[in-house]
């Protein structure tokens, strides 16, 4: 792709981007959110048309006018957001739109479809029944189906947009194996990721975008993570995890014997004021379930939860909010925000009673309170009337945080607080966590990113299969210790 320009009303999304990918190469595409990675890939996929610039495949200029055209040219894309039909089975999803024909016209060769789907999934290290509907699968498994679907197209160029975001270590190993296999077959892979460790372990070269421009392309062997961050952010980040320990107060949250018949087994722990406690563990180990039980989003079967010493009796998010709990969910767009509403409406949603009189919202108090938090949290938005769907991931996350600060939460539960957020904004979120802890707010953080857990938490609780299997202090914890506890066996370094 040479000199690609794409503009949207009011925004120049791509400003002469050049990207060159060799056959059989794994090429990382990096950059902060909003740098233009997704736009560039959508042009390659035929979803958008470039305003100018050329795309050459095997040296020949091509015109990609539609996604169908892209598929014909051998371009396959695995989007971050899944394009799966939940009601259909794994096999039906993989072969959607190009089902193998049966003997009679219009008939479906189901046996063949299922056989081939099984083979594709087995190649990814999964021996799941391909007749299972996709809606029954975990997010990680859905990701595997998406990958199987893209590889089944026999693409020559395969784009993977943050394929690893939801995968566990074991599944990631399988993905790497598949990538190496595709590479050996001469397939070019464009790998979009925020994670340094992945980029360095699997990619041959790295191209960095910033503000719609190409910053540069480097062989992985000749570049360091620090240099990459500098290229992406345009400045040096002194410290990725600017942890400032705060003095601890009394417990704001005490959980004892929390049990759900499905998963959690007698979980007990506490979080003190000013303390950041991290829940670590594999996906499916019960971390998110604990958070949702505490917040009242899901039911639990036995156990007691106390907030600031008071037992939480009534069930449901409303009573949790009243006692001073705020919950920043993992799925920001699906559960944290109402995308079509403004920054103002989203920020004030949980605190409306305190901003109103007799059921009427006092609009001046609302504007004042929201503006104050928007400024305080450094939300970058043209104004508080901006719809939150137009903000970047980091700024959206700040709006969700603002919502819980406006209710004067004493305990914040942050589920994957920096997922899908670029490097610069991550540091801002970490700094905010420090400030909140210093104000005496207790924070319970769930994170799959071990560096983040080690960097920010005062105390780390490790979960495995619905049990708390270990508690580590900030001083003693290492990646290996957490990993061993989470998996249950000593891990040998990969």
């Amino acid at each position, binding site marked *: 792709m040479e000199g690609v320009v794409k503009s*949207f*009303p009011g925004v120049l999304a791509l400003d002469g981007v050049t990207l060159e990918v060799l056959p059989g190469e794994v090429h990382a595409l990096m950059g902060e959110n909003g740098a233009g990675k997704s736009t560039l890939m959508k042009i390659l996929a035929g979803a958008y048309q470039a305003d100018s610039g050329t795309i050459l495949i095997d040296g020949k200029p091509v015109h990609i006018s539609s996604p169908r055209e892209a598929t014909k040219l051998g371009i396959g894309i695995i989007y971050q957001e899944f394009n799966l039909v939940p009601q259909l089975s794994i096999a039906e999803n993989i072969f959607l739109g190009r089902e193998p024909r049966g003997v009679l016209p219009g008939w479906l060769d189901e046996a063949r479809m299922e056989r081939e789907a099984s083979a594709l999934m087995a190649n990814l290290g999964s021996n799941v029944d391909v007749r299972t509907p996709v809606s029954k699968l975990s997010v990680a498994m859905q990701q595997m189906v998406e990958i199987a679907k893209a590889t089944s197209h026999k693409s020559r160029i395969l784009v993977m947009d943050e394929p690893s975001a939801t995968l566990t270590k074991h599944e990631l190993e399988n993905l790497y194996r598949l990538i190496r296999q595709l590479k050996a077959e001469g397939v070019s892979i464009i790998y979009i990721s925020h994670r340094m460790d992945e980029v360095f372990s699997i990619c041959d070269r790295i191209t960095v975008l910033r503000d719609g421009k190409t910053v540069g392309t480097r062989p992985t062997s000749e570049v360091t993570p620090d240099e990459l961050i500098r290229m992406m952010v345009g400045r040096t980040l002194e410290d990725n995890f600017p942890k400032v320990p705060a003095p601890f107060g009394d417990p704001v949250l005490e959980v004892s014997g929390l049990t759900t018949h499905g998963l959690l087994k007698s979980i007990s722990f506490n979080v003190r004021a000013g303390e950041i406690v991290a829940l670590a563990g594999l996906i499916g180990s019960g971390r998110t379930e604990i958070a949702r039980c505490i*917040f009242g*989003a899901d039911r639990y079967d036995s156990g007691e939860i106390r907030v600031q010493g008071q037992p939480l009796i009534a069930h449901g*998010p*409303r009573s949790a*909010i*009243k006692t001073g709990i705020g*919950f920043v*969910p993992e799925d920001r767009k*699906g*559960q*944290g*925000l*109402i*995308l*079509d*509403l403004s920054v103002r*409406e989203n920020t*004030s*949603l*949980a605190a*409306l*009673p305190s901003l*109103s009189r007799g*059921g*009427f*919202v006092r*609009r001046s108090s609302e504007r004042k309170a929201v503006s104050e938090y928007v400024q305080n949290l450094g939300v970058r938005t*043209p*104004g*508080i*009337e901006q719809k939150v769907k137009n903000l970047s991931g980091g700024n959206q996350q700040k709006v969700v945080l603002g*919502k819980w600060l406006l209710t004067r939460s004493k305990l914040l539960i942050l589920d994957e607080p920096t997922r899908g957020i670029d490097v610069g904004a991550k540091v801002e979120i970490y700094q905010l966590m420090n400030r909140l802890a210093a104000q005496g707010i207790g924070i319970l953080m769930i994170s799959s990113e071990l560096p983040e857990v080690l960097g920010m938490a005062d105390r780390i609780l490790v979960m495995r299969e619905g049990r708390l299997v270990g508690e580590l202090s900030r001083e003693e914890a290492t990646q290996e210790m957490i990993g061993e506890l989470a998996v249950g066996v000593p891990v040998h370094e990969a």
Partner: protein
Amino acid sequence: MKRKLSFFGVNPGVLFGFVFLVALLFATTPSFRQVSTLQSLFQQASLNAIIAVGMTFVIITAGIDLSVGSILGLVGVVTAMTLMGPQVVSQFGERAMFLACIAGIAAGALVGFLNGAAVAWLRMQPFIVTLATMWIVRGAALVITDGAPIGVVDPSQPMAAMRNDLLQHKFTVFGMGYMGPLPISALIAFIVVILGHILLTRTIFGRHVFALGGNAEAARLSGVNVNKVRVSVFTISGLLAGLAGVLLTSKLVGGQPTVGQGFELYAIAAVVVGGTSLFGGSGSVVGSAIGALIIQVINMGLDLHGLSDFWQRIVTGAIIFLAVLLDEVLRRRKG
């Protein structure tokens, strides 16, 4: 800060469309310029506007209410039976009129509440629930009356003179009376629109309606009592259909179990033409009222030009199609 161009949350396209239509008719049709024409325009649009206000609340939560047309039929029956009940009239005299209004509105609200309860607590689809109640409520109105309208009674009946006087002369004030040059039904519709607008844009409840329609799960996790909001919007829709039913009873001088068929579709059309999204999360009560006026103006314009009711249907359909198309195009442009 950039302020968006808007008039009570109505998107400018809807407003320009309305102004353009009125100007066009004004210029081309002499009979449109008469006060009596304008009076009947407002009077006829008022019922649909009132129903559309309630429908707007439901549609903003991403629901739909198909039962309002049948509610009109049931409410007509309940209102007329209360007004014409010999015991009621003998005991309360003229105050039977107010009892009739209250009974009619309460009947509408009750059906709305039941709709909402099924949607909220039984977790059923609004389309299915209100499709079912549409049949049930219509059937109930027919069963109660044995299919016959409730109107003027035979002079041999007890209290016949007073009952007939109430129905034929006094009660008609709501549907056909005037306050100065203004039709009373239009005045009532105007008040409903203003109250609806305030409720939707200025209160916590209104904010929760938008939040529920925008993202129910995020709303729940932000402490919004989503079931209460669901029940409330359907109750409002039923209540306003009840009010419209009372006005219709007054206008028709009696309760007919079969009236109001297809009114749910007129109301949905007004809401959609007024710029409220059927996907929920955005919309405006004032827009729906203007939508109801637009539909009425077009019908009246065609009427004045001698085009039949048959043609009016085709044009109404085309307007809905164009309004939604325009909305979709604008949305895509904005990206």
